[in-house]
């Protein structure tokens, strides 16, 4: 089967329409004033733009809130549990940025490649085809290349589209991807690879400031009690914006909600919803004791988890450099600066030890 295909700009809508016949197709769109993934209906033009969705594609796999099961007491008091049906139809998500796709491979470590996989996440992952679009114009908050990604990264995608002179070339990265482009006009493999490499080089060269992540884990290893943490969280107001809009943050809460119309909680549901270590309630125990009592410990936890603990457990950091936390922070806290300050502090520390 072919691995490369050409898609003319004008032909894209008809391909999308063809996919819509076979799959539930999702694409970035403005929904109530927010750019996020939504159901694409036939006849709509979903040409990729220079933007990144505000809400990452994570929400298609770990929704903000979802019902894990419903329960009710049957006759004779028996406990009856009903789990939601697995998606019947394959989904195709169009227009995924490489950083978001790579984030899914990081989430896979947690939810999929484990001895206790999460059935809800896995079902969605397994029934989804991801068609990505390379970023020819990285934004100034982007730093994917500093954390092991690329504006034309292929990890996690089934097909990568690359814009070239107004049209697109498609590169299939998996069998699912090959099947998807099977009917399209073939593109010459070598020429296409050259073209993609050129686009990639161009985009990587135009990336903003690099963030020094080499050796960051080691600096964090020795920096748990660094005085820096007393200061770095000061502007942070402890909201959940950075975590909720982060494509890799995945902490959640489980809640059991009794149906208010039921008698004495005889029916209800178990709901999973986004949660974050940035909230004080996250670790506060019923007794009132909180192992992470202030913003200092909570911000440290989030950074440590991303750049130290995740690295220890899975060999890579839980950050794809999408820049959403930077662009959306209400107080303009910038994770790139935070990392730089960790570097500065570690350096000052080592100087102090030498003298």
């Amino acid at each position, binding site marked *: 089967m072919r691995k490369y295909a050409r898609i003319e700009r004008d032909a894209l809508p008809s391909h999308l329409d063809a996919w819509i016949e076979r799959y539930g197709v999702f694409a970035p769109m403005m*929904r*109530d*004033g*927010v*750019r996020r993934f939504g159901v694409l209906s036939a006849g709509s033009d979903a040409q990729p*733009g*220079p*933007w990144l969705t*505000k*809400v990452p594609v994570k929400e298609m796999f770990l929704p*903000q*809130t979802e019902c894990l099961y419903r329960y009710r007491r049957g006759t004779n008091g028996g406990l009856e549990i009903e789990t939601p049906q697995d998606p019947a139809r394959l989904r195709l998500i169009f227009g995924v940025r490489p950083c978001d796709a790579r984030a899914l491979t990081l989430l896979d470590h947690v939810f999929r490649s484990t001895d206790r996989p999460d059935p809800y996440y896995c079902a969605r992952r397994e029934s989804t085809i991801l068609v990505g679009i390379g970023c020819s*114009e990285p*934004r*100034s*908050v982007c730093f994917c290349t500093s954390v092991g990604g690329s504006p034309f990264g292929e990890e996690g995608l089934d097909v990568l589209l690359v814009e070239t002179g107004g049209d697109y070339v498609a590169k299939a990265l998996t069998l699912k991807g090959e099947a998807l482009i099977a009917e399209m006009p073939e593109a010459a493999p070598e020429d296409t690879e050259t073209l993609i490499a050129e686009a990639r080089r161009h985009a990587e060269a*135009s990336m903003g*400031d690099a963030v020094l992540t080499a050796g960051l884990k080691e600096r964090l290893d020795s920096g748990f009690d660094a005085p820096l943490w007393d*200061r770095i969280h*000061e*502007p942070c*107001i*402890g*909201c*959940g*914006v950075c975590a*909720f*809009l982060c494509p890799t943050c995945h902490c959640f*809460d489980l*809640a059991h*909600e009794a149906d208010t119309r039921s008698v004495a909680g005889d029916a209800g549901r178990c*709901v999973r*919803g*986004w949660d974050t270590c940035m*909230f*004080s*309630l996250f670790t506060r125990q*019923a007794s009132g004791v909180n192992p992470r009592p202030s913003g200092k410990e909570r911000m440290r936890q989030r950074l440590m988890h991303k750049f130290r603990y995740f690295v220890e457990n899975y060999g890579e950091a839980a950050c794809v450099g999408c820049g959403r936390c*930077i*662009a*959306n922070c*209400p*107080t*303009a*806290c*910038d994770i*790139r*600066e935070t990392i730089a300050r960790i570097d500065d502090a570690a350096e000052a520390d080592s100087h102090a030890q030498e003298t």
Partner: protein
Amino acid sequence: MNDRSEEIRRVAKRLLAEGKADVVIGFRDSRLPLRATPHFARTPAEADQLVWGLGCTSNLAKYLLDREECVAVVAKGCDVRAIVATVKENQVNRDRVTIIGVPCAGVVSWQKLEAVLNGRDLTEAIQDGDTLVLRGREFEQRVAISDLLQDACRTCTVHEPVVCDVRIASSAPAGGRTDEFADIREFEALSPDERWEWFRREFSRCIRCYACRNACPACYCEQCFVDSTNPEWIGKGNDLTDTLIFHIVRAFHSAGRCVDCGACERACPMGIDLRRLTRKVQKDVKELFGADAGVDPDSPPALAVFRPDDPEDFTW
């Protein structure tokens, strides 16, 4: 750098040197154009990073809560109102706060900026009189500053801080206009069904990140009602009803206390029109009890007091 930034730095260094403040809370530039980040200056070098500009949006009164140190704070008119309000509620010790008042003609709404940019990446913004020149890799666009000011600034009545210890000179328009709540009246005129539809739809995109609550200088409860587990007032999931109740109660809790600084709205990553609720409450408190929070240091918070002849036409 502008004159006001320079003057703020000078004042900050003096206050630190004289021991009048252990820390000066102000703003410094972030790496993003038109976005300043709260800055905590404890040394002259740190004071030299202080700036003033259109991106100084946060309400810094928030950072005065629960603070042990002697603080000097760079404060716009709305920040000062919030300080006045929180001092009245015994949350901030006025004796330990030096207010560096900055007359302010308004700050930029990054939600509006986002809408103007429509996905394009902003790398530079230069002020040219009443205009901002926005630049990105492949574009340049001139936008009137007034079109980018956040809505709260358009109805601001306190361009000039109502109280301050040090005043930063500036040519900002003195005083302000009277807020007529035209937008609120217009909304009130809709039918209940229309209002309910708007309310449901607008707030359905809330992600319960609580940025609105956490950015608000009036939200300082040790435990917010949404975090209470016993009683559990609302669910921890994301039932739309629970989200709506959260926002109703948040607005209600701001009654007689909200200074309409807009901190909630500009903190919201989803661009929800939060002030449509808080301003309704603000308007009603004004109409019913003739009170406006944070304007008069000597009058008590409106809902902490009463008059025997308060309006009661709402009762059965």
